[in-house]
């Protein structure tokens, strides 16, 4: 066991980004370095995960300053799992970008920024200091803003303005909340805060502060009243960018919510009701939004919002089985959403269109590819052996025991609407006899690409589909993992001891 292992995922991403900046204009080098580096990072993430699984939480004090003064990096099971998932999605999207993003965009530093984004994600998952968490969120916002605007198309800029305004607002609220918290307790270390917040006498201010955190992270994770930035921006950048955004960005918000509300704040009945109401409304509004959309990527964007509701519902119910369900859903959602956006990218490369009314014939032209795409689509719906089914089972059973029938209703409604939307999509895009689309000139059609590029685009989809299948068929292992994470989150003493062990 190596205690320094916690910091390695950050170091690898940082190193990759710097190396990629040195070869700024050599695109073919960048592609190779990015893919090889991402695979290396995946190896390290697996190493970290297996080490944490066997030996329990690892911590590192940056700069060797002792807690609660220094910045702590903590890898408990939850953080290690998230880093592993980031690495999996990172490998997939890195390869997919190498195949699909056009050179004009790559020339403006796509890959260095992409690895800075992964650095920010890894940092947000591993940090044990609330202010440091804010800094990682800033890195995520700035890099995602660049990725969103690279290429400078009008639609991209329009989406980016909405994205940036609301996310910077969320950051300000988050920062204010941190300031209040620091004023109340004089500490920023999350493990230290856990003890100090409980001892604060001014409970009203603590509750208001908890709500501030809820709003800040709520905007970032796109929950019910605050999600408008997401469908306005996620369909504008290249599919590779949408894939990493849809897969990971909103999930960082969910991760932070889970962390803050299990570790620092006690969820009182009022907050519980707020969380549950928000969850049900998110499930409802995301589902309804997905029904009316015609653009494939907009449909997926609304489904991203809709499915955030499941995780918030799990958090709101605050029992071990509910949190386990939410964590399982998080694991499932990251793999599937990344895959779906990459899939939409392949469809776009083949047909040069995103409108499901105009698409068609996919099954007749590409039967094998269609069967492959069926895996993420039906995993998302949660047809029983596939991965989406198991977490909903946990969530619904938790709903019965805590007598939250509205939540059960919301979950079932959202599942049915997802089924309806996916079946409609399948019928329109894959089975229908489509109209003949005019050839767009100078468009890099899939059939014109080299074999290398085709492999780079298809391999990550196959890879993530296999991961999805494993999540479904090996659900027993994932359930065990989720239950262990839920146990650690509910009983935060282990986390606190790991950080403040001196």
């Amino acid at each position, binding site marked *: 066991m190596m205690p*320094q292992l916690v*910091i390695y995922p*950050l*170091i690898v991403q*940082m*190193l990759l*980004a*710097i190396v990629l*900046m*040195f070869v*700024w204009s050599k695109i073919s080098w960048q592609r190779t370095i990015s893919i090889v580096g991402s695979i290396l990072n995946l190896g390290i993430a697996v190493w970290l995960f297996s080490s944490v699984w066997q030996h329990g939480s690892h911590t*590192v*004090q*940056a*700069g*060797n300053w002792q807690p609660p003064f220094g910045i702590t990096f903590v890898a408990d099971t939850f953080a290690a799992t998230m880093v592993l998932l980031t690495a999996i999605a990172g490998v997939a999207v890195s390869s997919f970008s190498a195949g699909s993003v056009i050179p004009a965009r790559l020339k403006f530093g796509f890959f260095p920024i992409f690895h800075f984004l992964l650095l920010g994600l890894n940092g947000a998952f591993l940090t044990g200091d609330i202010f440091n968490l804010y800094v990682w969120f800033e890195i995520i916002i700035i890099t995602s803003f660049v990725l969103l605007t690279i290429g400078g198309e009008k639609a991209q800029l329009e989406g980016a303005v909405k994205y940036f305004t609301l996310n910077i607002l969320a950051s300000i609220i988050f920062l204010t909340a941190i300031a209040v918290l620091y004023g109340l307790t004089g500490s920023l270390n999350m493990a230290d805060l856990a003890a100090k917040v409980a001892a604060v006498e001014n409970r009203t201010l603590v509750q208001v502060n908890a709500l501030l955190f809820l709003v800040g992270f709520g905007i970032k994770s796109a929950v019910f009243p605050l999600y408008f930035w997401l469908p306005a921006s996620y369909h504008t950048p290249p599919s590779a960018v949408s894939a990493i955004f849809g897969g990971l960005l909103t999930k960082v918000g969910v991760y932070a919510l889970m962390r803050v509300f299990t570790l620092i704040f006690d969820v009182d009945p009022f907050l519980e009701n707020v969380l549950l109401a928000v969850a049900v409304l998110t499930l409802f509004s995301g589902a309804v939004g997905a029904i009316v959309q015609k653009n494939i990527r907009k449909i997926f964007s609304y489904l991203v919002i809709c499915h955030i509701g499941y995780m918030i519902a799990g958090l709101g119910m605050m029992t071990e089985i509910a949190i386990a369900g939410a964590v399982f859903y998080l694991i499932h959602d990251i793999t599937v959403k990344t895959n779906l956006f990459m899939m939409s990218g392949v469809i776009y490369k083949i047909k040069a269109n995103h409108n499901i009314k105009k698409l068609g014939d996919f099954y007749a032209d590409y039967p094998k590819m269609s069967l492959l795409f069926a895996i993420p689509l039906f995993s998302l719906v949660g047809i029983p052996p596939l991965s989406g089914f198991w977490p909903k089972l946990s969530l619904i059973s938790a709903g019965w025991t805590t007598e939250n029938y509205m939540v059960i209703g919301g979950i079932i409604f959202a599942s049915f609407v997802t089924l309806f939307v996916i079946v409609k999509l399948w019928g329109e895009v894959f089975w229908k006899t489509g109209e003949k689309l005019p050839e767009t000139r100078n468009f890099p059609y899939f059939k014109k690409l080299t074999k290398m590029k085709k492999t780079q685009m298809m391999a990550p989809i196959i890879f993530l589909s296999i991961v999805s299948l494993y999540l479904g068929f090996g659900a027993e292992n994932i359930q065990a993992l989720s239950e262990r994470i839920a146990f650690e989150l509910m009983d935060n003493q282990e986390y606190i001891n790991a950080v403040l062990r001196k």
Partner: protein
Amino acid sequence: MKTIILRTASNYMLPLLLIFSVFILLRGHYLPGGGFVGGLIASIAFVLHAFANGLGDTRKLLHFHPGFLMPTGLALSFLSGVSPLIFTGEPFMTGLWYPEHLPIVGNLGSALFFDIGVYLVVQGVTLTIIFTISEST
């Protein structure tokens, strides 16, 4: 703004400001100053030169694209952060200090290289932004 006064002055200001920026950089460990401010002052030196003599002359003076300073500086800061991991096995970003007291410089530690890295990055970013903006108008 190609006036003779500004042009003559800028010839003297450039080295002066650069020396001053290095002074600010080194001063910054315990006193106000440091890599960020030092980098800004150094870029002001070049911006002033560009005002007086035109962008082309400043580019010639620099010999390379200022954007190149960004990865160089980042790499330097990164190495200073990683060095405790490599040499002593202590956590990331632990300050390493050379045990002897050096003349003029004082105590030498890895924090200095971190700050020099910041100095270079700030200069690279500022000059790239300003050069790009003034080229496009």
